[in-house]
Structures are given as structure tokens and as C-alpha cells.
């Protein structure tokens, strides 16, 4: 069990999301920075898909109610456990009654807290992720509030500290041309790949709205509603692109100029409003290679820490 003392801007229970239900209008959800959650889980000996907390900025305070292990990954916070510094990217032992405090965030936007055994809220429709829009899953289907007490899974036997170097955030976001890429003007195609795109404050778990030169579509016909996924870059009539993320609706009707590759979606999760992003064209083969490298990085940690 752990108790929320200060919930911060938006702290939610997240795992790797719901799958297989998109045809019912049920979105994916789950951690926006999936590699960070996977690593936090590995650090404390959990299965990768165990539920942890996604913490947006701070300040956040919570109390552990049993001995165990914790790991913080993702955004780099000033974190302390009963006043002693906690290193992001490392696991460390915690004792019942200790208070974890997250204050200033140096880099990034979202931190992931994993505890050994995972956050053991019940699975709803196959996942523990919180669906904020529909109000189910996670803890009571909502962001956490002061006084919430979250169940924690069975303790995992671990020894000593272990850590992993976090991936380096850079503003380059690799993307593939989308199905309607050819319907945009040459100037729009050029602007997509060459101009900086700034993250607007209207960015959230559903999608990141970017600001830059208006992207002009030369085709006029309206598109019929189609399935969309995290990573799809939609362009509404105003010409300002939206990158869909984990909480996006399952269907859309705007032209898709590009799709951000899966291996780079975490960079959006860690980009703050005002940050400038650059789209870099890539190929399907490179996209798959990048994803394989990302998983390899996680596996390499397991080999070094657990020998398997």
C-alpha cells in the first residue's frame, strides 16, 4: 500500500495500455513514455507491464506503507526519500512510513514511479491504465488525489542498488510520411521536415498540438472516418499539426501527413510546452531497427542486473 499526500498536477496509474478494444471506441491509454515505465519496472524486478505512477511535473508527495523497492525514471526530478536524495534511473530500498517527495523537474515532463510488486489496482478491460476521458481503470478512473491509498503487489526479493543510464532526449522526432502526405503542397511537405515545431500549452495525453507555418493541403475532398493510432500526425483545416498520443480517440477524419515512429514517441511525452521539435524523415526499416534497439537497451539491463 502507498498513500498519496500531494498528488501534483496530474498523477495517474498507468501500464502499457489496453489493446484489442479499439473497434469498440476504447482507446489505448497507458504510459506516454513507455520505455521509461518498462525500465522502472525492470529496476524493481517487476514484469515490464506492471502498473506504476505517471507523474506530470510536481510537487508530489507520497508515503510508502511497506518495506520494498522503488525506482524513478523518465523526467529528472529533485527527489528525496525522508530527505535523502533519490537518484533517477536507480532503484533503491524504501521502508514503511518513508515519504517520497518530488519537487523541481530539471529535464522532461513526466516521471514514472515503479514499486516492487507494482500498483495492484484491479485490471479493467485487460489493463490497469487510467482512462481519464471515459473515467475507468487505474484508481477510481481518475487522477490521484490526496488521501488515496493504492494497493501494492507482493514484495520482490532484490539485492543492492542497480541503475541504468537514461536515453538522451533530443528534439529530433523521426517520422514516416503518412497516407495523405502527397495531398499536401510542396511547401507544406518542405516545412514539415525543415521548420521547427513548437509544443503548445494545448498538449496533453490525447495529443500534442504543435505550432508552426500552416500546412496547406491541396486536395479538397473530405476524408471518411478512419482508425488512428498514437504517433499519427493529423492536420486539421487550420494547418497546425496534432501528434496523437496514448489517450487519443480511436477514429479520426483529418488528413494524416506523417506518423511519428514508435521509438521516438517518448520524446513527445518528455517535451514541455514551448519546446521546439524537428521532424526527421525516416524509413520503415529504420523505424523497426530503432524500436529493436530500444528494446535491446532494456534487455541489456536485465542481463547485467539479473543475468537473464
Amino acid at each position: 500500500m502507498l498513500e498519496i499526500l500531494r498528488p501534483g498536477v496530474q498523477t495517474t496509474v498507468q501500464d502499457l495500455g489496453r489493446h484489442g478494444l479499439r473497434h469498440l471506441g476504447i482507446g489505448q491509454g497507458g504510459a506516454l513514455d513507455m520505455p521509461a515505465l518498462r525500465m522502472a519496472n525492470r529496476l524493481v524486478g517487476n514484469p515490464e507491464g506492471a502498473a506504476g505512477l505517471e507523474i506530470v511535473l510536481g510537487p508530489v508527495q507520497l508515503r510508502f506503507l511497506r518495506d520494498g523497492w522503488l525506482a524513478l525514471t523518465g523526467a529528472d526530478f529533485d527527489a528525496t526519500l525522508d530527505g535523502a536524495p533519490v537518484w533517477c534511473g536507480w532503484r533503491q530500498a524504501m521502508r514503511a512510513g518513508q515519504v517520497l517527495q518530488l519537487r523541481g523537474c530539471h529535464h522532461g515532463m513526466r516521471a514514472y514511479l515503479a514499486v516492487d510488486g507494482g500498483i495492484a489496482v484491479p485490471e479493467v478491460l485487460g489493463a490497469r491504465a487510467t482512462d481519464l476521458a471515459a473515467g475507468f481503470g487505474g484508481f477510481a478512473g481518475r487522477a490521484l488525489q490526496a488521501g488515496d491509498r493504492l494497493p501494492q503487489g507482493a514484495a520482490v526479493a532484490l539485492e543492492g542498488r542497480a541503475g541504468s543510464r537514461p536515453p538522451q532526449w533530443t528534439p529530433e522526432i523521426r517520422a514516416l510520411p503518412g497516407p495523405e502526405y502527397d495531398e499536401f503542397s510542396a511547401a507544406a511537405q518542405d516545412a514539415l521536415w525543415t521548420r521547427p515545431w513548437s509544443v503548445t500549452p494545448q498538449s496533453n495525453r490525447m495529443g500534442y498540438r504543435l505550432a508552426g507555418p500552416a500546412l496547406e493541403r491541396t486536395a479538397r475532398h473530405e476524408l471518411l472516418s478512419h482508425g488512428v493510432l498514437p504517433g499519427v500526425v493529423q492536420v486539421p483545416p487550420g494547418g497546425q499539426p496534432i501528434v496523437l498520443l496514448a489517450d487519443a480517440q480511436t477514429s479520426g477524419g483529418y488528413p494524416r501527413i506523417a506518423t511519428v515512429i514508435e521509438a521516438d514517441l517518448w520524446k513527445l511525452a518528455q517535451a514541455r510546452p514551448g519546446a521546439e521539435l524537428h521532424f526527421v524523415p525516416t524509413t520503415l526499416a529504420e523505424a523497426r531497427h530503432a524500436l529493436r534497439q530500444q528494446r535491446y537497451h532494456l534487455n541489456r539491463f536485465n542481463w547485467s542486473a539479473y543475468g537473464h
Partner: protein
Amino acid sequence: MKPGEARFYLLGERAAVLAVDAPAELACQRRIWWLANQLRGRTELTDVVPGMNNLTVVFDPLASDGTTVLAELEQLWSGADEASFTPREVLIPVRYGGADGPDLDDVARHTGLSPDEVIARHSGADYIVFFLGFQPGFAYLGGLPEALATPRRAEPRLAVPAGSVAIGGSQTGIYPAAAPGGWHLIGRTALALFDPRRDPPTLLLPGDRVRFAPEEAHHA
């Protein structure tokens, strides 16, 4: 009937899409439902998602580069059969007008019908669930009588109550959960369109035939 021209393409590294370039029509959509049913449950596909005239299938990009998925979509589509899809029938009881349907009079004014005629025509038509999206359990329904088409409200409501039955443009739909919305609210149903504890969690499924049944005391 011959299906329209179909295109097959990848959407990012984890999805393959079949899209038919033709006006949305039921015969094509029935083939899409048939194809979706053929593919659902395959372990290599994580999602099979019908849209309007299209189908998106999601797979694990570490296991496949999509080539085989595209080839299979193409092969199955060439033999797609609209006849062997059997729809379910769902009746939705609706309290029309009053506090449950505050825009019924607006729709009546716009269409030149009386509120009772709006109710009679809306509940007299057969609807088909083309696909689900927007919210868990939100059905895109085909079949709204043309006479009832009403442009969306100039000012969208910040919160449309769950269960609201609404008209927006040439479409009608039911809001499963409270949400912002610009459609005209003509009534409300007490049925839960989405309940995560149920199996299946949504009341409506792609391909369902839907009818609305007026409940008494709608002018209360």
C-alpha cells in the same frame, strides 16, 4: 455487386489499412464487417478496427514489417462476402423532448416539422452501426431520414449528459458518457452504452441494426 476500388497501405510501422475509394454505402461496409470478423481473434493482430469504408489492423512491428499482413488483407478482400454477415437488432428506449431533449424544438423549427413529427420520424427509421469511435461505445449510425438533418449548434455545449440522443448534420448518435458536443439533443436513454464491467463492454457493435422507441411522458 462489385466492390469499389480498394487501396492497401501501411499506417506507421504497426498498422495496415484497407480503404475503399467510393461513396460510403452499406454493401461495402458489410464486406468490411465480414473481413473484420475473419481477422478478429488472430494472435498476430492486436486490433481490427472498422472505419467508414475502411479497416485498420494493428500488429507487432517487431514481429512483422506488415508485408504479409497487407498481402493477407488483399487476398481476403478479393473473396469478401457481404451476404454471410448476420446483424443483431437493438432497441433503444428514448425519452424525447423536455429536459432530456432540450433541442427538440430547435430541430422542429429547422426542419419545419412539429416536435411530434420529429419524434415519429426519428423513432420510425432503421439505423445501422457503421463503426464505433470517438468515445467508448459511441456508434456512428447510418439511416437518419434526410428530413431530420440539422446543422450543428453554433455554440457546442461544454457538457452533454451521458445517454443523450442527438442529431448533428445528417447523423444521429448517442453519447455514452458526458462530453463536450455540438449536436442537437432531442432525447435521452437510460441504457448504458458503455460499461467496462460488461462483456462486451459496449451496448452496440459494428453491424448492429438499431431502432429508437419513444417512452411516454416525453413532454413532462
